[in-house]
């Protein structure tokens, strides 16, 4: 969908999507989880009525799609109530799930509530490798059962695989599995190195040849499954010279609400120090979207340093990713160092050069109270 650049601070175009992170609780512990390192606990989570109010404000603001996410959103018993409420408001409802908590009864409740689409994640096609990344024994069988139930229900399904150096060779089998499960779409997404994935980068980052092989497998798959499968491919930033338009631009299309009610322009924004993010407990989404300082901070192009400021691409990539700029240059307001024009672009080359030839055996699992550097408890094969 097209968006225009903001007319000005007082009239930003309305957002299109809401990522509703209902909870950070999850039976899985994926080593590349996009949740922050500091996970929010059950006690601080928004109540059902809070989320219902958020959805009402979202619809009034112009949001069209709600992505129910987490953690594992099915860990919230009120999920069907929330889906039904969003459906009544005309919002398109998408469930982003690991599938490990799904059974016939819970799926039926969601379908009855009007759920439009499910995105089901798999960590790999190889059971041992998948469960090593996800940190949950028995997860693969439960995911396959979830996929079977979804197909039987006729639920529109996207199957998602995050790819990295430990599973890069199995992309053809991933596409075949998605096809066999009856998915309409398969997403092959390279790991994005933020949060937990940043901590585990040495164990995940593919080399150039591995990256090229994944890209080639996707190209072949698109021809092979031309009429039956849409394949979305998310490329890895570190092998690019042009940054991605992260979130379609800061606070331009997308709004994220955390389990405790913080409103963010992107799910990783809380990694940026010194920023105060408003709460949906205190302010409406309309107020937040139009005037919260955290949303204005990097919206549009006024905040940009050189070389972005005079760049012809500035309203295409919007300066790239603020969290990546912070993680690699130490300054969230810097040009995304993925960009070949960034004065810090050589740091990406340095990261690739430092990549160990052997993946480290230790993985840092996403879990509560896991301070970075603590040894993994799951034994490695």
């Amino acid at each position, binding site marked *: *969908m097209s968006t225009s650049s903001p007319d000005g601070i007082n009239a930003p175009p309305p957002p299109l999507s809401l990522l509703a992170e209902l909870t950070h609780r999850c039976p899985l512990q994926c080593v590349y989880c996009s949740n922050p390192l500091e996970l929010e606990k059950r006690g601080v989570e928004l109540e059902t009525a809070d989320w219902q109010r958020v959805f009402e404000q979202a619809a009034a603001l112009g949001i069209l799609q709600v992505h129910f996410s987490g953690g594992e959103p099915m860990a919230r018993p009120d999920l069907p109530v929330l889906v039904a409420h969003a459906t009544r408001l005309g919002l398109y409802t*998408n469930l982003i799930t690991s599938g490990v908590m799904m059974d016939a009864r819970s799926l039926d409740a969601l379908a009855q509530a009007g759920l439009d*689409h499910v995105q089901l994640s798999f960590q790999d096609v190889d059971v041992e490798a998948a469960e090593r990344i996800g940190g949950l024994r028995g997860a693969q069988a439960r995911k396959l059962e979830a996929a079977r139930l979804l197909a039987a229900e006729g639920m*529109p399904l996207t199957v998602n695989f995050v790819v990295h150096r430990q599973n890069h060779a199995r992309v053809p089998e991933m596409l075949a599995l998605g096809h066999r499960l009856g998915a309409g779409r398969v997403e092959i997404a390279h790991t994005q190195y933020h949060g937990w994935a940043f901590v585990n980068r040495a164990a995940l980052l593919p080399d150039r040849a591995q990256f090229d092989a994944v890209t080639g497998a996707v190209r072949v798959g698109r021809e092979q499954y031309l009429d039956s499968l849409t394949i979305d491919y998310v490329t890895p930033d570190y092998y690019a010279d042009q940054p991605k338009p992260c979130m379609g631009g800061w606070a331009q299309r997308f709004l994220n609400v955390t389990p405790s009610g913080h409103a963010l322009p992107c799910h990783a924004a809380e990694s940026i120090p010194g920023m105060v993010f408003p709460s949906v407990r205190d302010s409406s989404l309309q107020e937040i979207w139009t005037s919260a300082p955290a949303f204005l901070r990097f919206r549009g192009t006024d905040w940009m340093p050189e070389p972005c400021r005079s760049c012809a691409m500035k309203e295409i990539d919007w300066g790239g990713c603020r969290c990546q700029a912070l993680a690699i240059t130490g300054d969230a307001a810097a040009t995304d160092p993925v960009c070949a024009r960034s004065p810090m672009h050589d740091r990406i080359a340095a990261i690739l050069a430092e990549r160990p030839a052997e993946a480290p055996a230790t993985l840092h699992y996403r879990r509560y109270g896991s301070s970075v550097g603590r040894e993994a408890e799951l034994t490695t094969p």
Partner: protein
Amino acid sequence: MIDETNIPRFSRGVRLQHDGVRDQWVVLAPERAFIPDQTATEVLRLIDGTSSIGQIIDGLAGRFNAPREVIAGDVLGMIQDLSSRRVLRCDSMGTPA
């Protein structure tokens, strides 16, 4: 190939909806949304799961000052395209939904 006897309907997970905030019609679909142009909107609004393509063409021919064969070509081409992208699916007349 589809013909005028086919009955188009939206694939499950896809719908046409009026966006009141932006005052425009929008197609909502898995992982995406798009704004149909004015011609496409006129066609999509007539897709109700019971009307055949021929009936949709007749409806448009009655409202717009253009030869029926011109409208038919546009409508068939558009429905063919959206079916190949799995936005729509087409059943033959008499096929159960």
